[in-house]
């Protein structure tokens, strides 16, 4: 069986520079891929192309076998995506917002209510269910975005900085949640927090200037007697690895 996420020679050129340069990898069920790299390395651009938001300049990506360019709706149905910054409609209530995304995903009636309740339970949002999202703190907003991505229990999760802005307890909860879901899904998370990679990821990809420079398990990266941070700095600052 093909991998749940297949990225093939994905390239994105903006006028003047290449943000993502010939990136290929696959993610299987049960894998949690940590996507690392300095700011501007092309992490978000890659994730946007994978989510079918940004059309690639060359190459392609498939989610559960559906091409994100040729069969966008089929691909998106199997995807839970947390965009960068966890955007939400500020005037909507938490339940209103989740019900909206659920309805678009084709849920109705009691099933819709169950899905919304379950997603809120997973992300501990019950206490603020009727509050307008704009009145919530940063951590809550992030979790609303996360709840939206989990609502339909998708086989593929793409999360752009899921723990950004969360306090240590909430970070722990989200990592636990990702670990619990991991066996059933293919998950890609981008992060700046290197310890997170060791904590939840089964595999790490470091990307610099649009290219993949490392693709290995975090334990393998650390085996060479250095910390993940040293590896990261060595590779992305362009020093001898």
């Amino acid at each position: 069986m093909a991998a749940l996420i297949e990225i093939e020679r994905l390239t994105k050129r903006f006028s003047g520079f290449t943000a993502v340069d010939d990136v290929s990898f696959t993610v299987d069920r049960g894998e949690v891929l940590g996507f690392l790299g300095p700011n501007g390395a092309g992490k978000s651009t890659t994730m946007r192309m994978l989510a079918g938001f940004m059309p690639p300049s060359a190459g392609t990506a498939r989610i559960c076998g559906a091409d994100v360019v040729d069969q966008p709706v089929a691909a998106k149905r199997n995807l839970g995506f947390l965009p960068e910054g966890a955007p939400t409609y500020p005037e909507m209530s938490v339940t209103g917002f989740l019900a909206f995304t659920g309805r678009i995903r084709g849920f109705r009636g009691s099933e819709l209510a169950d899905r919304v309740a379950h997603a809120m339970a997973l992300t501990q949002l019950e206490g603020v269910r009727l509050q307008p999202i704009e009145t919530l703190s940063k951590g809550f907003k992030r979790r609303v975005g996360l709840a939206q991505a989990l609502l339909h229990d998708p086989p593929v999760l793409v999360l752009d900085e899921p723990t950004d802005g969360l306090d240590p307890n909430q970070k722990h909860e989200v990592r636990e949640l990702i670990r619990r879901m991991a066996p059933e899904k293919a998950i890609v998370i981008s992060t700046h927090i290197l310890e997170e990679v060791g904590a939840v990821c089964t595999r790490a990809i470091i990307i610099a200037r649009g290219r993949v420079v490392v693709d290995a398990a975090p334990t393998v990266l650390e085996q060479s007697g250095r910390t993940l941070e040293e590896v990261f700095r060595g590779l992305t600052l362009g020093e001898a690895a």
Partner: protein
Amino acid sequence: MAPALIVARRELAGYFATPVAYVFIVIFLVLAGALTFTLGNFFGRGQADLIPFFSFVPWLFLFLVPALTMRLWAEERRLGTIELLLTLPLPQWQAVAGKFLAAWAFCGIALALTFPLWITVNVLGAPDNGVILSGYVGCLLVAGAYLALGAAVSALTKNQVVAFVLAVALCFVFAAAGSPVVTEFLDTRIPQLAEIARAVSVADRFGGFTRGVISARDILFFASFMGFFLFVNAVVLDHRKAD
């Protein structure tokens, strides 16, 4: 429910969750009323019809509709929700159609709230209510045409001021194309263009509706006008969504 209708429902609720809806409706009603009774000479004419009202509506929409459409895509970009909306499993044209339908329904609500005028003419005289209804249909079609045009412009630029000014200018072109100033000028210089100007004039088409004439040609004109600009909107969005 089709995804477009789910989007439309959310959008429409969004209008009423912010001051946008109330400001728009109040300004529209105040201006429409004031113009009808002062410049329109509603009472002095001594005729039980809504011609004075209908004659001002396209000009009010010329400024108010772009105020509605300028934020249509720009706001989604600013909040980043465009990335969320367009990665949900719905065809992109359904998102375009949903936003348009919500704005159109909203204009319909604003128009419906001018019902006291209709009551007034019915109390004061015996107007032809068929003509009035056809006038309202015309107003709604003009709103739809301006909305489709404004929405396409909004997809084009991130800047709300640019979107507003461009939309007003383009709507004005279609509003004024059939006016004697334009057509007479073109008649003497480039007669072929004068024909085209009359054909694409929103105001000319609207005139028929206010006289109670609903012709298939005019309906077809407005339908293809909206269809064309919604298509442009979808194409532009596809190319510029990530900018």
